[in-house]
Structures are given as structure tokens and as C-alpha cells.
């Protein structure tokens, strides 16, 4: 008995006789004989009870150190926030969880209205005119933005800030090998200064876009307005990347500083860490560029009775219609994660988001001050939101491992992100959120004092 398969053997026999087949094998006659498997594949176990599977998976889960059970300071593109209980309840409503892409809008208004609300929330947070119905994640949204800038400007040189997450840079490099885009990349300097001046100096007539992260990989916050002006003076676009959307409750949105395309990783709101995925890519832009946007859009319209309703729209940009001329091959969004994001955002509201952001910043400031008091530790970042970088007197990566052995997940070492970059090896990125307690900060500081002594 397989618990998810409702057909009984008498059912199967009756159905075969309706079909006019002698056996199930008759339905696989088109498979060449040499490729037919005669029975279950050897070496793989047979079916198992719920209880047995649960035991197996639970045993695997126990082999991991759970972020919520230890002092925890990791960020660098994925952040641990408290997610209200109702978020996870609502995304498990079967009508959301087990629905498909809303291709039949008359019976998918729930998903469609949610996407319209999500698009509006995201556009307002990013400070853009419009936003799409989400991308796979921040890193792929970032690459798609570079391709979008190429199509809009008809130029192929993208300048990537050294403050852009190194995984995002890697993704862009991989894709650029095949699309012919020229990328200028840099390694960040372990200093308080960002590379905005250098980026401005690097822009020329061939530049399609400048890509800058805000706050950047080290946590630094810088005014993007001069960069936007320099881009526009050269008919290039400014792409801003936000990996921590909670920051937008505290700092000016990139769109307000005239960024043309703003992409982000939405994981912080509603989604959870999940060892890296699934996450939700945010993507907004100025209205004049919507025809070059990849991904799905939900739009408002009316039904035959004149009632407001929502549909997927502008789909002629997409692969199922434009095929090889599509803006992207993307064929999905991150629907359920977008729902989680949107529900969490609705629960917070503007007042809640601003308070959450204030709490994060305050906790980070206290942690930065406390860690700066540890002998030999120096705070690198002067401006930051909930994540900052410190320079240790020794290489940070082994320190992180040592602290992990003591039950403290201390942060992300720059040695992990930039292996082989000696100038960065002593850097440690520390993220602090509303889930970080004063005791956690004290525990980390005290342990660092011991380890560095």
C-alpha cells in the first residue's frame, strides 16, 4: 500500500479493460525494449511509512546546528528575523500552497490579488514606479537586471561595485561568459570608504550600467545620488541591489536616489534561512522600462460584469509567447515566498517595519560598540544598518571555526567569501537583528576576548 496512491488493484484492472490493454506494460510499448526496466531499480530502498521517514529526516536535521539555538551573527545576503506565526499558517492554506500559476484568472483571484499587493509593497519599499511578481532570488534578479540594462541601452559593459555580494558577482560572471557582456569587477577594500568615487570615474560611453549594493557586502551605506547622476550623464543605468529589505524601513530607498532598476533578496521578510533557498528575488524599475523587464507581472483590469479583477499581463515579453526572442527564459516566480513576504509586510505595516528597522539598527550599534572594546578588534564600517565588518588581529576564518566549536556562530569571515585575498582575511561580517539578545552579544564578545588573547 502506498499512502499517496488511491487506485486499488481492482480499479486498475477495471481501467485496463476500459482502455483495452492486457497489462500496464502494454501502455509502455513505445519504450524501446532495451530501455525498459523489468522491476524496481536495484540498490534503492522500498516504500516507507510516515513514521519511518520522519525518523530518518529528523535524524538528519539533528546533525545541523540550528541558528535559533545558539548566539548567531551570520548575514551576508541571508538574515535571521522573527517571522510571525500567522505567516507560516497562511502560506500553508491549501488554496495557496497547492494552486498553480494563475493562468485561469477567474479561479485564481486570490493569488493574483496577492501578487498585485506584493508588487505595490515592493515598488514602494524599493522606491521604484513598478515591481514584478518576483524572481528566483536576489542573485539571479541582479543578473537579469544587467541583461535588462543591456537591452535598454544597447551597450554591453557593466561595472560591478566591489561591495556587491561575491556570489552575485560570480553569477554575473558565469552568465556574461555566454552573453558576451563585458564585466568590470573589483574586490572590496577593508575600509570605511565605499568605491563610489572609483565607480563614477570608471563610467564611460560604453557603459550599460553600474551595479552597486546598498547596504553593501561589508554593511556600508552610501548616498547613491552622485552615482545615479554620473550614470545618466553617460546614458547608463544605475542598478541598486538590496540584500536586506528590512534596511529600507530605516534608510532612503534606492529609487528615491534615482536608481533605474532596483533588485533585492526578499528572504528577510517571511521566508526564513532554509540553508539558502528557496528565497524570493525582488525587482522594480522605472515605468518606462517595463517592456524590458523579465518575469511575470500582475495587472488590474475588470471582468465582463465590470467588477475589478486581476490578470497576468504583458506576457508577450515572456518565453511562452516570444520563445527565442523573450526577455528571459524565466518561467516561474517565487510565488509562495512572495506570499510569505507580503503577509509578513502586511502584518508589520509601515509603523512595524520602521520599528523593526530601528530595533535592528540599535542592536547592531550596541554590538559594534561592544566588539570594538575587545582588544585587537577594530570596527571597519562607520555607517551601517544591521550588519558591520570588524578587523581581527588574526585571520577570521579559523576564529569562526573555533567559536563554532564553542557553540557560537560568530558571523561570516571574509576568508570564506574571498578565499585567497590576503588583504581581507582578517575581516569578519557580523549581522545583528531583533532576534539577537544582549546576552548573545556579550557571549560573542567574551569568547572573542578569550580566543584572541
Amino acid at each position, binding site marked *: 500500500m*502506498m499512502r*499517496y*496512491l*488511491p*487506485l486499488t488493484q481492482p480499479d486498475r484492472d477495471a*481501467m485496463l479493460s476500459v482502455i483495452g490493454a492486457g497489462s500496464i506494460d502494454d*501502455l509502455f510499448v*513505445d*519504450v524501446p525494449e532495451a530501455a*525498459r526496466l523489468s522491476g524496481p531499480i536495484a540498490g*534503492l530502498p*522500498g*516504500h516507507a511509512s510516515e513514521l519511518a*521517514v520522519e525518523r530518518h529526516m529528523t535524524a538528519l536535521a539533528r546533525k*545541523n546546528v540550528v541558528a535559533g539555538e545558539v548566539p*548567531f551573527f551570520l548575514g551576508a*545576503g541571508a538574515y*535571521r528575523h522573527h517571522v*510571525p506565526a500567522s505567516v507560516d499558517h497562511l502560506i500553508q492554506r491549501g*488554496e*495557496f*500552497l*497547492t*494552486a*498553480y500559476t494563475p493562468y485561469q484568472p477567474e*479561479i485564481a483571484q*486570490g493569488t493574483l*490579488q496577492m501578487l498585485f499587493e506584493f*508588487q505595490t509593497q515592493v515598488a514602494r519599499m524599493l522606491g521604484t514606479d513598478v*515591481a514584478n511578481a518576483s524572481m528566483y532570488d536576489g542573485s539571479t534578479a541582479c543578473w537579469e537586471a544587467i541583461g535588462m540594462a543591456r537591452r535598454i541601452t544597447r551597450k554591453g559593459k557593466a561595472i560591478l561595485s566591489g561591495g556587491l555580494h561575491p556570489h552575485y558577482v560570480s*553569477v554575473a*560572471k558565469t552568465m556574461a561568459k*555566454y*552573453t558576451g557582456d563585458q564585466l568590470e569587477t573589483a574586490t572590496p577594500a577593508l575600509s570605511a570608504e565605499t568605491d563610489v568615487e572609483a565607480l563614477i570615474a570608471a563610467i564611460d560611453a560604453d557603459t550599460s550600467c553600474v551595479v552597486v549594493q546598498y547596504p553593501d557586502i561589508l554593511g556600508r*551605506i*552610501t548616498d547613491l545620488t552622485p552615482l545615479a547622476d554620473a550614470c545618466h550623464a553617460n546614458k547608463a543605468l544605475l542598478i541598486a541591489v538590496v540584500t536586506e529589505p528590512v534596511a529600507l524601513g530605516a*534608510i*532612503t*530607498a534606492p529609487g528615491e536616489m534615482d536608481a533605474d532598476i532596483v533588485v533585492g533578496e526578499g528572504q528577510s521578510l517571511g521566508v526564513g534561512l532554509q*540553508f539558502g*533557498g528557496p528565497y524570493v528575488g525582488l525587482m522594480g524599475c522605472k515605468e518606462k522600462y517595463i517592456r524590458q523587464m523579465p518575469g511575470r507581472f500582475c*495587472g488590474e*483590469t*475588470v471582468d*465582463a460584469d465590470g467588477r475589478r479583477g*486581476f490578470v497576468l*499581463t504583458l506576457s508577450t515579453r515572456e518565453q511562452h509567447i*516570444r520563445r*527565442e526572442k523573450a526577455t528571459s*527564459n524565466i518561467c516561474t516566480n517565487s510565488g509562495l515566498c512572495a*506570499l510569505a513576504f507580503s*503577509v509578513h509586510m502586511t*502584518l508589520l505595516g*509601515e509603523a512595524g517595519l520602521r*520599528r523593526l528597522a*530601528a530595533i535592528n*539598527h540599535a542592536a547592531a550599534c550596541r554590538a559594534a560598540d561592544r566588539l570594538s572594546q575587545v582588544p585587537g578588534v577594530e570596527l571597519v564600517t562607520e*555607517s551601517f544598518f544591521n550588519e558591520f565588518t570588524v578587523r581581527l588581529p588574526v585571520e577570521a576564518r579559523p576564529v569562526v*571555526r573555533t567559536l563554532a566549536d564553542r557553540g557560537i*556562530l560568530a558571523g561570516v569571515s571574509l576568508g570564506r567569501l574571498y578565499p585567497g585575498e590576503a588583504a581581507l582575511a582578517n575581516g569578519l561580517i557580523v549581522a545583528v537583528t531583533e532576534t539577537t539578545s544582549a546576552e548573545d552579544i556579550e557571549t560573542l564578545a567574551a569568547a572573542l576576548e578569550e580566543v584572541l588573547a
Partner: protein
Amino acid sequence: MSINQSGWRPQMTAGDGKPAAPTATGNKALMLEEALIFEIGDTQTTGVDFTGIDAAAPASRLGGLARKAAIGLPGLAEPEAVRHYTRLSRQNYAIDLGLFPLGSCTMKHNPRLNEKMARLPGFADVHPLQPVDTVQGALEVIHQLAHWLVTLTGMTSVAMSPKAGAHGELCGILAIKAALEARGEGHRKIVLVPESAHGTNPATAAFAGFAVEDIPATADGRVDTAALIARLGPDVAGVMITNPNTCGLFERDLKTISDAVHDAGGYVYCDGANFNAIVGRVRPGDLGVDAMHINLHKTFSTPHGGGGPGSGPVVFSEALTPFAPLPFVEKQGEQFVLIEEENAGEHHAGSFGRMVAFHGQMGMFTRALTYILSHGADGLRQVAEDAVLNANYVLRSLEGTLDAPFAKAGPCMHEAIFSDANLAEGFSTLDVAKGLIDEGFHPMTVYFPLVVHGAMLVEPTETESKAALDQFVGALRSVAERAKAGDASLKTAPHFAPRARLDETQAARKPVLVWKDAPLAQAAE
């Protein structure tokens, strides 16, 4: 006796068949209209409290960029938020409500054990950049799932990081490109794609810099093998073939095609969207496939979630394995190791690079592995058999009612295809689909694949009982008969859904993609 004075008199009135009077609210009993959050929320209300958490910063260090302007984000108290989304959810059709015969999309039951396991804190609350010795269980999940996928497909290796099926296609095509370049044949620019393919296939090939050439289909719904082989040559990088194909048919000649492609120096990409039809019965590796993506949300029951997130691992042949993307998991002794840029070294120097931040859709891996362990090798084989049995049952039950262009040629695989050929003049596939909505079913896939005019692609999946299939067949037969008889009421269907047909022309001509109508209420007090 005692007389009930309340006036309560349970009684039935006979219906007169006329529609009920409109209600003041627009609601229809359990069918509730729901406003936008921007109409019911305001910027001061919040459903999250942070009582006892200090928000006072020693001094702001936001680089002079503290936000000044209002954002315009409405908030709802928790009861209102729960109600808002619950009401919205009830305007959706879903597998949990009934049979969802969307061909090529594989809407099967999503076991709830999968959800429970994905939410174990040891999986859900783990950061992707934790030191690897603190995430050995997570890496082991990836390793175990990889082993199943490689074994079930008869391939050599698997790239786990692609985020969805189309992303997996890109992964496969980039590996082919890298392999060609590694042997100095980067000049091969042509990718052959059958005209019945998903739109993602040509879009993917074009993205990677290839030129796409269509290969025609034969009258029996399969790729024209002779035409394909005739086109092979020194400029052809490879082919992208879906098997079973989008007409729901097994490509009998795939091995012959693969051999010919290999002889001509090309590679075979198989779109594995329909692997659920053959899992446990056929290994694509035995058919000469070099790369194939597997949609975990199709074959292995991770939820579709109203449009994602997906997950698209790609299995590779020995020839393409050296070019697979980073990162991946390797077992070294008793340790699970993450192979990334820094330790790819000599063994994996040919890798074409990284496709995503972090390691892929871990939350989907835990669900898929749970599903696979639940079924086991024997259960997965039964999955394919029941999926194919159910589709053939639908095909034979309806071929007398609807035109079934390939029914004469033999059995179908996991999905049955029909056309609009024998509907009344002026009636189309769309009318059948919308009529089916009123009968309480999600429509089948319509107007795809493009090789069949007015296509209706029905995929029941293996998680439907015979009773459910009989009910669906009865409903579709009834709607089809009405469309054949020219029943005008079908042209305005659906009549009983939350919305009537929507004006897609208006939506596209004057796109309204965000709420703009009125400023938000600033305060509730």
C-alpha cells in the same frame, strides 16, 4: 403542547431556477469579496509587537541616509490579516479542492509530511554560510537526494543548484556550451528544437548565444527523426528534446537520435518536465541523454505554491559531468564537503561556474527527499504506472466525444491530448475550459502544444482515484457536448466563479501594475 414563540420555522421553498437577487455587499454567502490591503489598512496599524525590545540606538550610524519620506505600507492587525489572506485564498482553485488536470504541469497531491519535514528547525533555521561542520545534516540531505536522482535517471552526476526547470535548462545548455568550447568547437551555433517544445527551450538556447532551428513534428505527434538527423552537421551544438513529449507521447526514436547526434559531435539535452511518466520504468541515461533537468515540483511533489518556487536539478552524462556548475556536495570519508570556487581545484576546473548565490532550493530538497523515501523504488515505479494508466483511461473515455488526434496511434503516457476539431462553429477550446470551471474543475492546459490546433492537454496524475476520474470525465463530456451543440451560454462562462471572464486587452493596453488610486490613511486614531 408548547408553542415555540421565536418565529423560527425551518422550511424549504422550491427554487424557481432564476438567479438570486444581488446582495448589498457583493458577497455570495461563502464567496466573499475582499478589498486590497491599501483600502483596508493604514500606515500606523501593525500586527507585530516588539514589546520589551529596545529600539534606542546609542547614535544613528546610517550615513546620513535615514529615511525621511513615508513609504506607504499599510498594516493590519493579526485578526484582520488572517482574514484578508484567508478570504483571498478561497478565490483560488487548488489541488486540495479537486482534480487539477493541467497538462504538462503535473498537479499531483502534495503530501503534508513533506511540509512538516521542511519545517524542522534543523533544516529551516540554518544559514547557508555556516561552517560546513555545523551543517553536515543539510549537506547529507543534498547528497542523498542527489544519489536518488542519479540512480533513477541512470546518469553520472547531478547539479542541484538550479532554481527552477527553466534555470535547469540553462544549466544544461551552459554545460554543453562549456564542453564544446573545451574541445575547441565553440563555433557550433545551432541548437535543434522540435516545434512542440516548451517556449523555455528556444528562450534558453537563445540566451546562451545559440541560434535555434525548429524541427517539425510528424503526423503521429513525434519529432521528425529523419528531418532531425538530416540537419545534423558540424555547426550543430545539440538538440533539446522533451521526453515524454508535450503531446504526452514517448519519443520512440530518442536513442537513435542520441546516437546520431553524438556521431555528429553534438549533445542531447532532454527536457525532463515529464519524467513523472517514466520514473522507475525508464532511465534517460539508457537513451543516450547528456543532460536533463528534473522539476522537483512535478515529479517529486514539492508544492507549486501559486507559481513557484520551483527547483530544477540537472543530471549529467559522463561527457558533461566535468562542466557541471558550482557549488556541489561531495562525500570525503565520513565528511560531507561543499565544493565551491576555492576548492574546485584540478578535479572540477572545467566547471562553467556558479548559477546562484548559496546552494539551491534546500527547502525543496527536503520535501522531495521525504517524498522519495515515502515511495521508495517500488512506489516511484507505481507512480509512473498509475499516472500513465489514469491518462489512458481519460483518453479512452473521451475519444468518442472530443477529437483526439493521436489516439489511434497507440497509448499515451501521462497526459492525453484533444483538439477543438469537432466543436460547433464559433466554439473554441477556451469555451470548453471556461465551462469546465463552472463544473468545479480547473481547466486542462489549453492551446499548448502549438502543433495541435486548439489543443487541450489533460494530465490527471497518479494521485486521482477512479471515482475522481469518472467525475471529471463526466463533467468534461457534458461541457464538450454543449460546445458541439453550440450552447451559447458557454460563450459567457464561467457563470459561478468569483469573476467572469477578465478583460486582458485592457490590462495589457494600459498596464496598472501597482496600486495608485488614493493615498493611504495615515492613522487609525
